[in-house]
């Protein structure tokens, strides 16, 4: 008996209002995997993640979380189901303290909030020092860590990260990638949207290249890193 994928997206059609953005998307995340989605701006990467959370109109296809159909789910219900979501922008409450941000991430959680906060402070030691600071006053990298810790306050079945390193300094970028590896190492599967294709593919078990709302190429992280088309498009190689 093969185990179910944690997240399975099949033949997905979705969009905003009347406009169709995603045309037959297929992506799956197996248990404990890190999966990267890369592709040019406007390819529909964020829209894929938003479909999982019930934030866009899904017109057709399947989205299963551990075998259970979650199409049309309300966003707060998706969080309750254990989806840790870090949006691309505006992913912290700027006027709440770091600690309050984590508490808000734990809104749907009944027990073990203190313990989970302590776990987060172990995972992100910088945040412990800044826990009473207003999130809006932190640097971009630290804010991103607040956003990740806040998202992880649920009992995560999967973590969805939308361009977590965008706009950060190289130092913070590699710190974020290291942290993602650590989170994945604790058994949480990860679906990662990234502009930083090279670093993302280096930590990914599997990668999907989306272009214009459709699957273009897919393979293991290593395969995609070595693929000359992918290299020409996203990895800044000159051939």
């Amino acid at each position, binding site marked *: 008996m093969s185990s179910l994928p944690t997240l399975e997206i099949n033949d997905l059609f979705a969009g905003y209002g009347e406009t169709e953005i995603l045309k037959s998307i297929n992506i799956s995340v197996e248990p404990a995997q890190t999966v990267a989605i890369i592709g040019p701006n406007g390819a529909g990467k964020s829209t894929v993640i938003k479909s999982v959370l019930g934030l866009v109109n899904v017109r057709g296809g399947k989205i299963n979380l551990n075998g259970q159909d979650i199409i049309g789910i309300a966003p*707060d219900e998706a969080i309750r189901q254990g989806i840790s979501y870090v949006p691309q922008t505006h992913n912290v409450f700027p006027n709440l303290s770091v600690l309050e941000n984590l508490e808000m991430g734990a809104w749907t959680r009944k027990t073990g909030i203190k313990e989970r906060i302590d776990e987060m402070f172990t995972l992100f030691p910088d945040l412990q020092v800044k826990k009473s600071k207003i999130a809006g006053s932190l640097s971009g990298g630290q804010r991103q860590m607040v956003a990740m810790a806040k998202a992880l306050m649920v009992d995560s079945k999967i973590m969805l990260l939308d361009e977590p390193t965008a706009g950060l300094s190289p130092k913070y970028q590699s710190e974020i990638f290291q942290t993602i590896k650590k989170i994945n190492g604790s058994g949480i599967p990860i679906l990662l949207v990234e502009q930083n294709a090279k670093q993302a593919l280096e930590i990914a078990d599997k990668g999907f290249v989306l272009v214009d709302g459709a699957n273009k190429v897919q393979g293991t992280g290593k395969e995609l890193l070595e693929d000359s088309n992918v290299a020409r498009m996203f990895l800044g190689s000159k051939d």
Partner: protein
Amino acid sequence: MWQTFGFEFVNFYFIPGLVVGCIYALGAIGITLTFGILRFANFAHGEVMMIGAYFTWTVMTLVKNGLGFPIHPLVAAVPAIALAISLFIFVDRYFYKPFRSAPTIRVVMASFGMMLVIRSFVQSVWGPNQLTFVPGIARPNETVKSFTNSFDMMILMPNKHFWIIAGTFVIMLALSWLLTKTKIGKGMRAVSDSPELAKVSGIDVEIIIRATWIVGGFCAVAAGVFLVMDLQMLETTMGFRMLLPMFAAAILGGIGRPFGAVVGGLVIGLAEELSVYPWLGNGPLLSPGYKTGVAFAIMIVMLVLRPSGLFKGRLF
């Protein structure tokens, strides 16, 4: 010094300004919370104050006629607040909720309609004429008078002003505890910060909205009761007349900033009263007829110079 300057300034300008400021502050809290959390300018907010005061008057009258003894307005305000809040949760559920995902202007217009509905309702039930809230002249509290007089700074403060200032202070403390120490209060601040992120954090936004009506309604009715305690009479247009200074206070403090609204309310109330102090020469600096204009001027200047308010609120 006290005789020539302080006595008059403190008793006839500063304390009345503080009292008006407290009323504006309480009213502005609801406006700023609705603006921040439900994202619309609620024109019916003044009517919440007004109907809460009418409910309070009715409770006082019923108790006095039925049981034969008078009760303090702040006691009568308790059932009145409960009634007003239930009414506004009902209004939200059946009147504002259908507009939740519609463009803001529709719900603003709807609240304008609700303002007229409530005022007409009150006019048809209680009549369009002024009602006496508490008869007689409010005498200064003797204890405060003789105590302050014992060190030559006589303060003439009627009991009603003491209750208004102390009551506002207690409500502020409770509000600050609610917003910084409780889950629901932090949730209110979170939704005010970013409703989209709140939704994808699993926060139940409808519960937060209900809490907003409860807190805003509570403060509004308290403001309405304090206002009629001060004026000693009720009229159906009193809420509407409060609307501009309350909006000015909310904007001055920064939209979505309840503590900003408190500061804004106090500043506007004091500015209005102090604008008629004879700062230059013997006559009032501004004629009392311009008091409302002071609130309006502060609002305009703030919107031009610093639209996010003193405490960096939301921009629309």
